[in-house]
């Protein structure tokens, strides 16, 4: 931003350039392999949650659609991957794709309702759809195992080489790679004309039709894409833990992912990633202190962050850096 760009095109191009801090971020994600070998299964959970939060960021942070039922797509992805590997085919990448497609289908169908509403109505609709799916999965015991959980997932070695081990090394590597690939797609989307349209919808819903934009069509599209991404996150958890429990679809999971995103900073690609990391590390540490009461600490953290840093931790940091570099 300091130097004036030569042409408008070069300026827009420069916005999507990789910054050193981003490269540093991805290098840090490799650190657990060497420094925290006992925490790799936590690292795996973080990678999955980060992907889930990233999917929510596309609709909440960029298009301004607040959802309290996003676990629906996570759960659909998880059950699809589980059922697929148990009854059809245990290869993991096909599992991811099938789960993504199934979640996208659910997303696409519900997007027709979602795209027509805003504000509180929309939040209640997403919440309702989430609850509905949770109950449906609970009652379909023959398919999902209901409240006993879905057992008997047998996945093959990743790429025919790496067996999921007890320490979670392969699991973390697999989830991290998947997260990175999906992140690249999301990053491209944000810097696309479509990404511009999403930011337009978030900024000024009323003006969009006046510039000829069909916002409902954009929303249907981003909702479907976001659902597919959430489905991939769900599939990862099913494949790496080889079980799916009903809480993959729970309201708590929907709420947690909103908290993660708000903590990290919505509407910034890395917000969900940072938020998921802080949330899960905090949960791990706080539940070590007092297992039943760890939400108490999360509550304090959340209230503090939203009061002091309305744009989340990353928003606060970037403001700080901005102020510092101006001096």
């Amino acid at each position, binding site marked *: 931003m300091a130097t*004036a*760009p030569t042409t*408008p*095109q*070069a*300026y*827009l*191009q420069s*916005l*999507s350039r990789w910054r050193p801090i981003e490269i540093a971020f991805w290098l840090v994600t490799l650190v657990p392999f060497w420094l925290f070998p006992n925490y790799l299964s936590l690292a795996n959970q973080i990678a999955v949650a980060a992907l889930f939060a990233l999917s929510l960021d596309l609709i909440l942070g960029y298009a301004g659609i607040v959802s309290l039922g996003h676990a629906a797509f996570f759960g659909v992805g998880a059950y699809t991957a589980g059922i697929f590997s148990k009854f059809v085919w245990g290869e993991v990448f096909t599992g991811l794709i099938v789960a993504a497609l199934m979640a996208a289908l659910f997303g696409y169908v519900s997007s027709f309702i979602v795209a027509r509403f805003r504000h509180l109505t929309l939040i209640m609709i997403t919440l309702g759809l989430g609850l509905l799916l949770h109950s449906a999965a609970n009652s379909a015991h023959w398919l999902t195992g209901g409240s006993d959980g879905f057992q008997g997932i047998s996945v093959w070695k990743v790429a025919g080489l790496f067996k999921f081990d007890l320490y979670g090394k392969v699991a973390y590597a697999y989830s991290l790679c998947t997260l990175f690939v999906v992140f690249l797609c999301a990053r*491209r*989307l944000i*810097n*696309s*004309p*479509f*990404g*511009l*349209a999403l*930011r*337009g919808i*978030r*900024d*000024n819903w*009323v*003006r*969009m*039709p*006046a*510039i*000829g*934009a*069909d*916002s409902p*069509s*954009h929303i249907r*599209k981003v909702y479907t*894409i976001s659902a597919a991404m959430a489905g991939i996150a769900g599939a990862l958890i099913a494949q790496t833990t080889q079980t799916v429990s009903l809480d993959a679809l729970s309201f708590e999971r929907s709420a947690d992912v909103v908290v993660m995103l708000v903590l990290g900073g919505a509407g910034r690609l890395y917000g969900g990633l940072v938020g998921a990391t802080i949330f899960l590390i905090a949960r791990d540490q706080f539940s070590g202190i007092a297992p039943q009461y760890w939400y108490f600490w999360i509550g304090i953290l959340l209230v503090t962050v939203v009061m002091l840093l309305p744009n989340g931790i990353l928003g606060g940091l970037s403001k700080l850096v901005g102020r510092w570099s101006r001096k």
Partner: protein
Amino acid sequence: MSAVDKKASAGIALATRGLSRSFGSLVVARDIELNLPVGARYALIGPNGAGKTTLINLMTGMLPPNDGQIILGGEDITTLLPQARVKRGLARTFQINSLFAHLNPLEAVTLAVCERRGIAARFWQNVAVNKDAIEEAYEILSKLKLGDVCYQPTRELPYGRQRLLEIALALATKPKVLLLDEPAAGVPQEESGDIFEVVAGLSNELTLLFIEHDMHVVFRFATHIIVLVGGAVFTEGTPAEISADPGVREVYLGKRHHG
């Protein structure tokens, strides 16, 4: 020759037939018949609450009418969605800035250009590869004297520049008919002339209808004036006819002269 005589001719860019709308017992548009010839510079005036903005909302589809038709270039667009009307060449600006606060002018106008070109749904390509769209956006911004601030966040722009960005966003849709709702609203009087100079410099093929309170500006830039009172067309005519009309002086101009 009055505009009504040309009703049937092909030179009408935008017309309304018996356009009516009421909220309960409050009539905000009563049987409005308008004909905007291609390339017109029409002013829409009237006291506060006369229904001027409502009329723009009706024509652009932001408010559905109870009765009547809106005809754009011979096509009945009464039931079309607002965005579909924009795609057919009917654009508007807003009296109160309705911009994209977190996009800069270049991004906002590029977005509008992409929407018009039908490439705004492309999520797989970097926006920067669309060189033509970006250059078109920059051209519009330069023409409206926004070239030097087009990388600044919109919310940090001076108010007068934001008013120009309102117009730039509308122009990016390549309208045939442009409805300007008080383009200089809130701008100090000495600067409002600048905004109307920009408006006057727009292509002759573009049909313009603008709402404005400053009668000096109206008489200077309009070729034809429509006076709206209580949701109905009170009278219409050339600036000379309107300024000589004792009825208009009474309902509108008079108030101003007496303070």
